[in-house]
């Protein structure tokens, strides 16, 4: 299993009531949706050719029509993921760090401007060192 698969499983376990989708947009508009996508994945090489640290970043979006439940899921995810270290499925995470997305970030999990469809959306970036 790849670290992406393990990350998906971890997200599903953390928010059992929400729809968690990797790279595809769920058509379910009733509940809270968690969407994520791998943004970068870099592995430095030592001079000898031995791979060094895996440094990956993931865009993560939490959206829903109810602001309170959406914010609750977003806050819960941030709290659970930020500072995580240890086994994640078949992967071992040396460190996981969550930051808010930059102001320039455009949400990808909603086709239109979020406010037009009454969606509330929280976006952040997850860095995984492995």
């Amino acid at each position, binding site marked *: 299993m790849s670290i992406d698969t393990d990350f998906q499983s971890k997200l599903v376990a953390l928010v059992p009531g929400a729809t968690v989708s990797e790279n595809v947009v769920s058509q379910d508009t009733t509940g809270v949706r968690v969407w994520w996508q791998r943004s970068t994945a870099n592995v430095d090489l030592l001079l000898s050719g031995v791979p060094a640290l895996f440094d990956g970043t993931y865009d993560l979006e939490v959206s829903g029509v109810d602001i309170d439940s959406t914010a609750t899921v977003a806050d819960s995810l941030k709290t659970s993921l930020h500072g995580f*270290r240890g086994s994640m499925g078949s992967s*071992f995470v*040396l*460190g996981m760090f969550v930051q808010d997305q930059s102001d320039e970030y455009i949400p990808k999990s909603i086709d239109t401007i979020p406010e037009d469809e009454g969606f509330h959306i929280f976006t952040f970036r997850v860095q995984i*060192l492995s």
Partner: protein
Amino acid sequence: MTINRRVGFGNTLGVDSAGGTSFVTLGAIIDGWKGPQAKKEAIDISVLSDADKQFGVGQKDWGEVTFSIMYDPDETTTTTLETLFNSVSQVAANWRVTYGVGSTGSGTIKTRTFLGHVVGLSPEVKVNEHLMCEVTVKVSGAVA
């Protein structure tokens, strides 16, 4: 060649103020530490007939360890370090660095210990940032 990839997150620095081995982890270190910054003296042992300079080595100086903490006069990390700094005892505290496991959870947890005195405390207060304090520990003797 097997290299266990390790990062700073999850490593700890502990201290036993009495110089023993009952280490208390300093939980308020902000983002890591630097050191011991070790040096060894290089002694010129060249003689007139040497075409190339020859060097021997002298004593090792394990230098200092520096780090920053979140300063809180009520909290153990701050009070421990302040007590150590204010102490005039010549008995050095015992410090222990603990390196966590590496990638895939492999590699063993390793420690390094050394004796040292707290020789510098430098609190920093800014209007919209948390209180910080820079700490300097002078290593005495060897790092094992």
